[in-house]
C-alpha cells in the first residue's frame, strides 16, 4: 500500500522540479541533476578499474592477496556493467527524443 503512494509522491516532486526548472531557468532545478549523477557513476567506475589494476600489479609483484585481487576485479566489473547499462538506457532515451516527429 505504501510503496505506490511513495512512488506517486516522488513522481509529483520530479514533475514539479522539472516544470520549475523550465520556468525558472537553469538555476531553479533542485537537488543533484542527472548529468552530475552520471559523471559520478563514471568516476566511480574509473576509480574501481584503477583500483583493480593496482591490485593486479601488486599481485604480479607478489604483494597482494589473491582474494583482494578477485574482489577488486569483480567490483570493477559490476561498476562497468552498471555504467554501460545506464549509458545504453540514456542514449536510447536521447534517440527516442531525436526521432520524435516535430
Amino acid at each position, binding site marked *: 500500500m505504501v510503496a505506490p503512494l511513495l512512488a506517486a509522491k516522488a513522481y509529483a516532486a520530479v514533475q514539479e522540479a522539472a516544470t520549475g526548472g523550465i520556468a525558472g531557468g537553469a538555476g531553479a532545478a533542485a537537488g543533484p541533476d542527472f548529468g552530475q549523477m552520471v559523471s559520478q557513476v563514471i568516476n566511480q567506475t574509473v576509480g574501481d578499474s584503477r583500483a583493480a589494476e593496482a591490485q593486479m600489479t601488486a599481485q604480479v609483484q607478489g604483494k597482494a*592477496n589473491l582474494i583482494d585481487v578477485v*574482489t577488486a576485479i569483480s567490483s570493477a566489473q559490476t*561498476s562497468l*556493467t*552498471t555504467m554501460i547499462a*545506464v549509458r545504453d538506457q540514456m542514449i536510447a532515451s536521447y534517440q527516442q527524443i531525436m526521432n520524435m516527429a516535430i
Partner: protein
Amino acid sequence: MADPVQPSNIAVAVATSALKAEQSRMRVIAENLANADSTAQTAGGDPYRRQVPVFQPMTVAGAKGVSMARVVADETQFGSEYAPGHPAADAKGYVKLPNVNPMMEALDMRNAQRAYQANLSVIETAAEMDNATLSIIKK
C-alpha cells in the same frame, strides 16, 4: 602498496573477510601438519605445540564480518616415544612428540575448505543478484 578495495556490496565484503579468516586458519593447519614430527632442539625439551585458530566477529563496512583474533597453543599432553639415540631424548631415553593428530588436522582442513567454498558461493550469489537487478534496464 595497493590497499585492498572494499567491495561496494556489503554481503561481498563480509564474505571476503570470511575468506581471509579461512585462509589464516588454513595457514595454522598447514603449520600443524608440517610440524607434526618436529621434536625439541634440546635433550628433554618440549616439541612443537599444536596451534588452534580463534575467530571473532569484526565490523566490515558496517556489518559483522569475521577475523582470526589470535592463535592459541593447544595445551593437551605431548606423546612420547622411547628412542635413546634421538638428540631430543631425555635422561630415560624418551622423546616427547608434538600433540598434533594428523587425522584431526585433516578434518579441520576439510572444515576450512567447506567454509571457504560456502563463502565463495555467497560472493557468487551476490554478484548474480546484482546482475539480475541490472537486467531490468538491460535489453
